[in-house]
Structure formats: C-alpha cells, structure tokens
C-alpha cells in the first residue's frame, strides 16, 4: 500500500487539516515511510486473537443520575474565540 499525494490530500480533508504543497509532499514521503514500518505486523498470524482496545476490561460504568452543579454560561463561554447572545459564534453553516 503506497499513499499518493492525492490520497494524502483526501486524508487531510477528512482530518480537517489544510496542507501546503510543500507539506503534502513531505507528508507523502514520511507517511509512506511510517506505513512501511507497519508492514512487519503482517508477518504475524493473528487468526482468532481478540483485539485489545483497553488495558482494563471495564465496561458500562454507571453512576447515580443526580443533579450536580455544572459550568455557568459565562464560564463555558469565557474561552470562546467569538460569541454572541450567550452562544458560540461560528461562520454561517446554512446558505
């Protein structure tokens, strides 16, 4: 599997990153070098081996559904790059 600059551009779009031409070239080379290193794994037969997504086998950790204090709108908005009418403001989404 070798990544082309076009695929790198597509991945950048999926990851919401914008690359300069120079970065696209550099990342194509570097990602291919890293992916090449990954091929070692194909030497191993992992048929029937369960995947390990976590070191601790815990799931469905529940707590009581109780009301507790949370951030005020002022605190939640204190770091907002732009805000209006007690909301986070973003560029127009719907044309």
């Amino acid at each position, binding site marked *: 599997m070798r990544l082309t600059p076009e695929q790198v551009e597509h991945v950048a779009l999926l990851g919401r990153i914008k690359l300069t031409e120079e970065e696209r070239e550099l990342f194509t080379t570097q990602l291919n070098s890293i992916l090449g290193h990954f091929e070692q794994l194909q030497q191993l037969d992992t048929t029937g081996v369960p995947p390990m997504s976590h070191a601790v086998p815990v799931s469905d950790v529940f707590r009581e559904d109780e009301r507790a204090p949370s951030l005020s709108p002022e605190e939640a908005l204190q770091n907002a790059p732009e805000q209006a009418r007690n909301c*986070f403001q973003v560029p127009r989404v719907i044309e």
Partner: protein
Amino acid sequence: MSAPTALHELTAAQLSDLLARKEVSAREVLAAVYARIDEVEQALHCYVLLTREVAEKQAAEVDELRARGEKLPALAGVPIALKDIYCTKGIVTTCCSHILEGFVPPYDAHVVERCRANRLVFLGKTNMDEFAMGSSTENSCRGPSRNPWDLERVPGGSSGGSAAAVAASEAILAMGTDTGGSIRQPASLCGVVGLKPTYGRVSRYGVIAYASSLDQVGPIVKDVRDCALMLSVLAGHDPRDSTCLDAPVPDYTKSLLPEVKGLRVGLVKEFMEYRGVGVEAEVGAAVRAAVARFEELGASCHEVSLPHLNYSIPVYYIIAPAEASSNLARYDGVQYGYRARAAGGQGIIEMYRNTRNEGFGAEVKRRIMLGTYTLSAGYYDAYYLKAAQVRTLIRRDFDRAFETCDVLVGPVSPTVAFRLGEKTDDPVQMYLSDVCTIPVNLGGLPGMSIPCGFSSHGLPIGLQLVGRPLSEETLIRAGYAFEQSTDFHRRRATPVQQVDGRRGAVVWKG
C-alpha cells in the same frame, strides 16, 4: 561531590521534615527554589509559565496554618511543577500548542485537586512536546528545553520540562504524563526518578487527552521515597474518569524497605535488543551491572524473552495516532483556543481547516493524518484491528513472564540523551527512542525509571522496573533497595558551571 545542603537541592521528604519541625518556612523553601529558577531557567527553559503569585499565597497559607498548630499533610508547603497538560483552574494551560493559546481552564484536573488538598505549592507549568507527542520537547511550540547534564542535549520528552526542572533543582517535585514513555524516558535522560502507574491507578480527569487507552499520570521526583509520597497523594478512585480503578490505595511509604531477598527479577531480552539491534554499549553495561547488584542484594535474576515486544513500535504508532485523531477533533476554533482569522466569506469547514493548519505543529498534524488514515474505510482491519490483536499478544507475553518473575527490568531508553536536532528530520528514528517504554503502556502496566549509572561523558542512564498491574508497591520496594545500595540518585546536574564555562569563566556557584 559534597552532600547537598541548599534548600532547593533537598528532596521533598527532607523538606517535609524540616517544615514539620518548623526549622524552615514554606515561604523560605519557595524563595530558595525561585532563586534557583532565576539562576538557571534562562539556560534550561524548563517552564512555560511561572505562577509566583499563586505560589506565594499557597506557601503563606501553609505557614499560617502551621503556626496555628493545625495538622497538615506530609507534603504541605513543598513546591511542585506541573506539566502544561493539566487543567489548572484560573491558570493558563496550553499543552504547548498554539491551538490552545490563552486557554484558561474553568476547572482543575483531579490530580491538581489532590495537590491543592495536600497543600503543595505550584511553581508553574512545565514545557513539553505539543500534546505530549514527542520524545525530546523539540515539538513544543515554545521551543525546546535543555538537559541540565549537557545543555547541547535534549531532556527527553514529552515531560522534558518536568524532568529537567527536577534534575536542575528548579522544582522539588514535578508531575508528568506517560503515553509511550513520556515520564520514564525524560526521567532517565535527566537522571531522576519517574513513575508511570498502572493504567487506571490515577484519574485522568482534566488531563488533556492524547491517546486515552494509553495515557497515565505520574510523578517525576528526586528519589524513590519522594515517589512513594507523591503516589500516595495521587492514587485513588475518581468517578469522573470511568477507567479509574476502584481499588484500595495502600500507604506506599510502607514499601520503602531495602529488602529484595527472594524477589524474582527478569531481564527482558527485547528491552536490550530490538529486532537484533542492541542498546548503546554503556547503557547495556549499566543495566547488567544493576541486575548483578540485585543478585548481590539477594534477588534471583534470569533473562526472559517476550517475543512480541519486537512489534510494539508499529502497534503503538497505529493505536496512539488513531486515538489522537479522534481526541484532537475537538480543537476546531469554536469553543476555546485559537481560531484562524476569517478570510472573507469562508465557510465553517474552511475555518476548521485553517484553524487546525495554523494551530497545530508538524508532528501533531502527522499523527492526526496517520490516525485518520488507519481508521478510514478499507484500512481499519489491516491497521487498527491488526494492531489491537498484536496488543493482546504483547500483554499475553507480559502475563507469561510474570508467572516466573515479580519484576521485569531493562533500560528505559536505548541511548543516553541525544543532541538537539539530531532526530528531528526523521520521525521513525525519533519513534524508535521509545522502544523500551512503549510496551509497558500497551500492557497497561506500572513502570518506573531510576538512575543506574552514567556514561563516560557524564550523562545519566536509567533502569526500568516493570510490574504486574497494581504492583506499584513491589516497584517501590525494588527501586528503593537498589537506590539505597547506590549513590547515582544523589548526584546533581551542574548547569551553572556549564553556563559559566561557556562564558569562559571558571566559577563555582553550586
């Protein structure tokens, strides 16, 4: 070298005694550490923020409470440095990334709450690789830190600022985080003690996430006693982190016994040699000498092989970037941090892309790209699923080894501290520097780094101790026994002499 006498050179345990006996005040200790910071910080760049006002207030409170005769926690009044990855209420936290420029968290991380409750004094926030992605601090948007043992070399990373600060006595205690070695490797390269606890031993609440199934919080300190004291502060259940274990917290200082008779120590073959390439000769020799020392102390030592460790680098560099690509999706210029200035009429997707392009450094982008790719349709099975399966095989190797061993040992880093700029152009070379530490995160196991020697150029070498899940007591006991029989941990770096040497002056200010 003579025994340390200046306040900033003492350990937390020593200061704790002096403070409790009222021989010094918390304000005096703080003044001594800030004087040291004034002296060497310019050469080392351990900190990205100093919080003098906060610290002075905290120290004054401790002195006042003590004067009133109140009973205080053991570490009350001891100054600590926090990695810039911990959310600190009211104190800027950036993860050393442009994208979090000016971010003031509205709440404290769990471990920061624990530090406040134990009345530790906050010196400042330490330098790190951006979002903890790196092994040298060279990926910090604020520029690299320097190794106090040799100013031309890196302190390791990602918690390099914390390790260098402790090694240079710019902090008594420090906090780091460890996803693939980010506590242990800088501790090793700077000649101090670092502990990555068992996954789940310490809450990750309020710690800026990199790879959530691997991240763990821990201390970087001057010796094993301080490590036990700090772990007792940090460990314990927190319902705000659903992966945090609800297991009893022992008094870790009770494990400070120089007693390892009968302890079964396994030297891991794959730590000494990854895919046929051995660690640096001096590193290997120091580790073998440490194993011999354990035998002299009454432990039984033998070599063990964990063959799947030879696959840990690709497994890690699939899993960690995959998790990172998801975790870092939140940095979009909407709720906090940096937003790219609006180009006329840009849509929201363009705003996201410009913000992330301008806000993230090269290594972070590389890992987001890598994770996005390996998780994308058509590649998931070949990369992520395969890596998760091999992770199981790695953990099984550890479980098998722990049938015949109580502690596994090896180097922390295959080399001593490398030169600034030496590995920045080749990501794969940089990734290989974590070859001995990564498997421990993949297994979710506790790992400790303790000084075990110096190279012929005077650079520190670290010994890694790895235990079964929740066996921190065993690591502390083994580490303490080793430390008590050696004096590597008593040596102090001399950045002042190096700076003066550069200026051509030969003066001793240490």
